[in-house]
């Protein structure tokens, strides 16, 4: 029953206690706050950096080169765009040095809309991230996946980006889905959530967590279905599931398969292929802006390699191609996919006959 942010915190604890994590750092990551979303509360190696994202990424690269295992945070992905050159460098160091230096760092950053974050707390990062070769990119949609993907990210010898869908950070998982978590939600909260008010004397009590390495590159079939394939990740997974359930409940035979990609690079082409061969109709859903979007890569590849499997034009549902996400609720909702628009897109695709 951990929330996603608790799952992340527990994974970081496992990281620093037995996977060699030496430094967890970023703006407001250390005490007393423990991260603007509480993701780093109570961790032993968490510390506050200067307000300088370039310094954060540079430091992570340097620590990694020195054989450490850094986990760096950019407070919101919206503030990572002055570091793209450094991210590219982290991604090309192993290649440009002909295999001389690998860069084992993890970069975590909250992404996406859904919290009325206005222009600079609503950005997506998946399109940008998948454009940076040499990085592995993961993005969970459940607390369990968050835990298991973060452990794998920490263990990977390459730079790995861990995108945190901020609208899902308080989402609760199924009881016991994180191996070793206490049965009871309140027990967990009392063990690992910092108290309100003065925390100077507080220390967390960590449950005896077990390993769970969710392989990078493997998708999860979040719902089996036969009529339409929906390829999505992060915040849009529960939305797509809800849309699919609604449609299924209506008894029109609209049975959507939902692929939770989890790993954006490398991604699970086998899972995509198998599903498209089965349903013959495909929808990609994500929040990033529409032009030069990662979903467009997936659709381009599907159109190129699975053209003759398709009974309907492949479809993308993505963020509007506009300069920002506006604060007012109407603006935010009109800017990124919603359950209703996903539902309509699935229904529209399902209507196509071969």
């Amino acid at each position: 029953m951990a929330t996603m942010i608790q799952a992340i915190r527990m994974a970081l604890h496992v990281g620093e206690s037995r996977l060699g994590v030496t430094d967890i750092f970023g703006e407001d990551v250390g005490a007393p706050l423990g991260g603007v979303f509480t993701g780093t509360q109570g961790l032993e190696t968490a510390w506050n950096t200067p307000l300088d994202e370039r310094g954060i990424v540079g430091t992570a690269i340097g620590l990694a080169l020195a054989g450490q295992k850094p986990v760096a945070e950019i407070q919101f992905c919206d503030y990572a765009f002055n570091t793209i050159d450094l991210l590219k460098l982290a991604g090309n160091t192993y290649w440009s040095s002909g295999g001389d230096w690998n860069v084992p760092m993890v970069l975590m950053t909250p992404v996406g809309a859904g919290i009325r974050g206005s222009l600079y707390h609503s950005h997506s990062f998946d399109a940008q991230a998948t454009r940076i070769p040499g990085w592995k990119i993961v993005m969970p949609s459940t607390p369990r996946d968050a835990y298991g993907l973060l452990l794998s990210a920490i263990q990977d010898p390459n730079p790995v980006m861990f995108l945190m869908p901020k609208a899902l950070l308080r989402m609760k998982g199924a009881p016991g889905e994180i191996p070793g978590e206490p049965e009871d939600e309140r027990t967990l909260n009392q063990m690992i959530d910092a108290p309100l008010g003065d925390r100077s004397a507080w220390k967390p009590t960590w449950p005896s967590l077990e390993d769970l390495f969710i392989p990078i590159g493997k998708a999860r079939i979040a719902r089996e279905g036969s009529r339409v394939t929906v390829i999505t990740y992060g915040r849009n997974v529960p939305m797509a599931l809800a849309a699919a359930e609604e449609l299924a409940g209506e008894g029109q035979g609209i049975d959507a398969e939902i692929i939770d990609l989890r790993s954006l690079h490398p991604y699970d082409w086998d899972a995509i292929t198998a599903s498209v061969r089965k349903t013959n109709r495909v929808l990609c859903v994500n929040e990033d802006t529409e032009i030069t979007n990662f979903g467009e890569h997936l659709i381009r590849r599907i159109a190129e390699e699975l053209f003759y499997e398709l009974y309907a034009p492949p479809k993308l549902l993505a963020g509007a191609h506009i300069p920002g996400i506006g604060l007012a609720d109407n603006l935010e909702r009109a800017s990124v996919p919603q359950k209703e628009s996903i539902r309509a897109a699935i229904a529209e695709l399902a209507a196509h006959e071969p």
Partner: protein
Amino acid sequence: MSTIAPVTPIARASERLSPDKCLQIYDLMLRARVLEERLITMYKQGDGYFWIGGPGEEAFNVPLGLLVDKGQGVDHDYLHLHYRSSATLLAMGADPVDSLRQMKNTATDPYSRGRNFAGHYSMRKWNVAPVSSPIEVQYSIAIGTAMAQRKAKGISIVQGGDAGTAEGDFATALVWSSRKGCELPLLMIVTNNRWGISTSYEGQHGYEQIAERGRAFGMPVTVVDGNDPEASYEALEKAIDYVRTEKKPYLLEAMVSRLRGHSSASGANFVKNEVDCLEEWEKKLEARGLISRAEMAAKRDQITNELAEASKRVRSEPQPEGSNIWDYVFADKNIVAGEE
């Protein structure tokens, strides 16, 4: 404030502004404070999603607003502010109701049409460049307006917080504004409240005062007690005058308080362990016999009521439509160059 290094002594003032000016400053400080309180109330009542603002910076920001050469174009001053600048805007003459509109993200919000957070001002008619959330980028942008003013009457003024000076853009402004033979009329202001969000000044800096960083670049630097409106007024007057006359850069650091925490994300409750510049100023004005406690209370009540009324009216103003997201993607006129 024992940590202030002797090398850049803090500028302090004694009674030196006229009674009228003192009361004008008081009026504006009070209006700014009450406005922020109203915005916080709106947030707490669900009439807004997020609050960030400047309670604790009024004693510095009001003088700034009063001293700016307000107008449009290079012969007036450009302002590159951050999200704690409501008092500056009010002192310049902005309508506080517009701030309520931005808080409530109405379609009538003149600063961003319901798109941006509270405190994200934009007023081309007064050279107020749009406030944007990313920390410190305004320091790189201010170089450009200052460059356009090398032979004009106006100057550029850029302001940001202490933690943000760690960003490269702060160094960029120092480097570009001080190039020998190509100095820029740029006043750089750091409003130092000794906090990032939750990260304190201690352990993040290698010097006592940020102003030190200007010295290497050969520019005058001053640290001022930003909780004292008279000291602030004088320091700003001196700095603005230098930049306007010499057409060269100046770095001014103002020590201020953060009275409501970082933002609504940290609760926006009043903190008790920082100097409250408004309270201090009220004490001084009372001691000088310029205004009585009763008059102060009446004034505060009146402003509070006005804004409470206004916030009710704003509630009924229209929200932007979803389809509005497509407005203002591309301009078809060069309005900044005077095209109508």
